[in-house]
C-alpha cells in the first residue's frame, strides 16, 4: 500500500505563520480565536424554501489606494473598516489585495473563486435554493477580535435580519 507524501496535508497555517513572524524577528505572535464549544441552530425549513445571505471578506475596489488587481502585493491601504452591503442583483467590483491569499499559487483573476454570487444565482434558478437576500454583506478583516465580536458581527446580524435571511453563507477570501 502506498500512502501520499507526508506534506500532502492541509497547510498548518497557524504554525507556519507563527514560525514565519518569529523568524522575521517579531516575537509577539498573533493569537487566533479559540473555543472548545460552538453554537448550533438547526435549519428551520428546507433549502428550497430558504432565503440565504452571503457574507464576504472581499473589498470593494477603491480608486486611488494603489494596485488591487490580480497578483497585486498585499495592499493594507485597500482594507475596509466597517461593514458594507451591496445589491445581490449587481455584479460588484470586489478585490482581495487587502488579505493574505496565496500569491504564489493563485492569481485572484476570477472573482468566482472567492465570491460565489453567480453560482448562487444558478442555484436559485435551479430551485435548489429558495432565494438570495437582496443584499450581500462585507465583513472587515482587521485582526481585532474585539472589534469583530463587539461591532462587526452584531452589525452583520442586524443587516441579515433586516433582509429576513433564514441562513447565511460566509466566504473568507
Amino acid at each position, binding site marked *: 500500500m502506498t500512502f501520499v507524501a507526508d506534506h500532502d496535508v492541509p497547510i498548518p497555517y497557524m504554525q507556519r505563520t507563527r514560525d514565519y513572524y518569529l*523568524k522575521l524577528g517579531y516575537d509577539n505572535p498573533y493569537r487566533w480565536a479559540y473555543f472548545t464549544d460552538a453554537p448550533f441552530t438547526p435549519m428551520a425549513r428546507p433549502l428550497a424554501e430558504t432565503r440565504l445571505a452571503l457574507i464576504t471578506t472581499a473589498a470593494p475596489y477603491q480608486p486611488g489606494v494603489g494596485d488591487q488587481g490580480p497578483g497585486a502585493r498585499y495592499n*493594507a491601504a485597500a482594507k475596509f473598516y466597517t461593514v458594507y452591503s451591496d445589491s445581490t442583483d449587481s455584479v460588484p467590483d470586489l478585490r482581495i489585495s487587502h488579505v493574505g491569499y496565496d500569491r504564489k*499559487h493563485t492569481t485572484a483573476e476570477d472573482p468566482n473563486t472567492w465570491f460565489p454570487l453567480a453560482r448562487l444565482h444558478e442555484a436559485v434558478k435551479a430551485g435548489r435554493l429558495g432565494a438570495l437576500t437582496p443584499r450581500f454583506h462585507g465583513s472587515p478583516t482587521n485582526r481585532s477580535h474585539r472589534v*469583530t465580536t463587539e461591532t462587526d458581527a452584531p452589525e452583520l446580524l442586524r443587516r441579515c435580519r433586516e433582509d429576513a435571511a433564514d441562513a447565511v453563507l460566509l466566504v473568507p477570501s
Partner: protein
Amino acid sequence: MSLVARHLEANGLPTVIMGCARDIVEHCGVPRFLFSDFPLGNSAGRPFDVESQRLTLELALRVLESAPAARTTVQSPLRWREDASWKLDFSNLDRLTPEEIAEKRREFDAVKEVIKTKPGRS
C-alpha cells in the same frame, strides 16, 4: 469570519463557511464548514472552472442542510493539483533567500504603518 459565524448562529441564524484554512477555522470552532484543500483565495472553487465552483457550492449547501451538530467539517474531494508541493511554499522562510526575507520584513513594517493610521484598529 469564524467569529461572525458563531455570533450569527448563537443568535438563531444557521451558517456555513466555505474556506481553505482548515486549522484556523476548526481552532475557532464553527457550526458548519466546507473545507477545500486549495491555496488561500479559492474558498469557492478553482479559477475559471465553473464545474468546480458549482460542486463547491453544492457541497456547502449540503453541509448547511444536513450537518448533525456543531463543528461539522466536510472536506471537498477536489484537489488543487496532483503534485502537492504548493503546500510547502506558503509563509515558509526555509524556501526564501536572505534578501527575500529582508524584503518581507520591510513589506510587513510598511503594512503596519498603513494600518496604524486607521483610528481604533489594530
